[in-house]
């Protein structure tokens, strides 16, 4: 893989030049308001996939069928009328009410159209916590999904390297942001410390992960020249 020959930055609002300049919204209602036009477009493009749509504080939440998340996100990313080119976050919500299902949330932003869309998928009770990974569309989803897996235990099907990112690899007390996780952890302090000290902080990181050699083709030319001359960085 090599870097693209020329890189054209996306100017915000470039796809809708006739639209008025953005202003800070005033008196935004809690419920209701103008929905993001992408919500209706998803419903038209994927019949039966949209569970419901709501507008809260001026932002549009679209609840979708979790099995079709990847198709929808890919379409939102690729379609010239949507162009959601930035995934700002992947996270999850667990409610204190045990009856309420867990939600996985994707925050999508379209720079060319100046749109923000929040996709949500509900994970029904009693079923495995698994949703499709959007890693094949946004490479930036890699660490976001790993964090979501680490903290909530939600598996992202199709993620190439789904492992813990905040807690260490050998951590097996559970997933800390779940409601049934005690704040101080499950083990005694001495046991937690024993396990933490037994962990080798360098065990999981291979040289491939730490070296720049693999990324050599992707880095800018001047950096390539400097590295080829033997310059060392980061030491």
């Amino acid at each position, binding site marked *: 893989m090599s870097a693209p020959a020329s890189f054209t930055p996306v100017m915000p609002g470039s796809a809708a030049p006739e639209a008025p300049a953005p202003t800070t919204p005033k008196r935004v209602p809690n419920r209701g308001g103008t929905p993001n036009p992408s919500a209706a477009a998803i419903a038209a493009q994927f019949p039966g996939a949209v569970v419901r749509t709501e507008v809260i504080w001026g932002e549009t939440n679209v609840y979708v069928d979790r099995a079709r998340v990847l198709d929808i996100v890919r379409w939102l990313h690729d379609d010239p009328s949507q162009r959601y080119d930035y995934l700002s976050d992947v996270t999850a919500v667990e409610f204190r009410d045990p009856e309420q299902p867990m939600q996985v949330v994707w925050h999508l932003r379209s720079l060319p159209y100046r749109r923000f869309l929040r996709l949500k998928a509900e994970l029904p009770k009693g079923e495995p916590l698994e949703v499709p990974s959007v890693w094949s569309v946004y490479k930036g989803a890699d660490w976001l999904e790993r964090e979501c897996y680490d903290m909530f235990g939600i598996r992202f099907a199709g993620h190439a390297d789904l492992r813990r990112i905040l807690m260490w690899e050998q951590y097996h007390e559970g997933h800390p942001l779940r409601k049934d996780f005690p704040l101080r952890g499950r083990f005694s302090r001495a046991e*937690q410390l024993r396990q*933490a000290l037994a962990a080798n902080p360098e065990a999981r990181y291979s040289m491939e992960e730490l070296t720049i050699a693999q990324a050599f083709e992707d880095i800018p030319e001047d950096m390539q020249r400097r590295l080829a001359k033997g310059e060392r960085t980061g030491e």
Partner: protein
Amino acid sequence: MGLMPRPDTTVTTYDPASHESWIATRLDFLVNWSRANSLWPMPFGTACCAIEFMATAASRFDLARFGMERMSFSPRQADVLICAGRVPFKLAPVLRRIWQQMPQPKWCISMGACASSGGMFDNYAVVQGIDTIIPVDVYVPGCPPRPEGLMYGIMLLQEKVKRERMGDTRLRQEIEPDPTSGLYIPPQAIDELSEPFGNSVHQTRSGL
């Protein structure tokens, strides 16, 4: 022909005009005096305490007055580890390894509430006091401590260094952790040390 009288070795003569300078002292005092006034700190800054530590090292408070202006970012040339900030469990083996890499004689200052006791982070991720990982000489309270507070801790450490006796070999022995658990102190002691302070039990179990 006659024999020279043997010089009297019990008497030392000193001629002020010769400008010879010399000093008589105890070895303990000399070594401790030089050690205490040239402590090279290894800053282990993980949080806001490190900002105060930087302020301490900067020109206004001027750590150089204590012979500490040379920050040793390599543990192998360091004398005193200043742990400034909270230490999560994931960082515990790193801190322990840095401590083990420091050569004797070495000391440790635990700066701030989080490093000393876990502070407000009584949760699953944070070590409840670095004294459960490495031996600590001076605890500096505060959240974060002001530079004056840290300097007071440093002066206490200097006092401690100046009172050491070279004959006491026990002082400079490396403490080996227990091979099975990897802990310095018994697990019961760690659990007792990590007991929540005050009413924090009720804060975390609010009944909601």
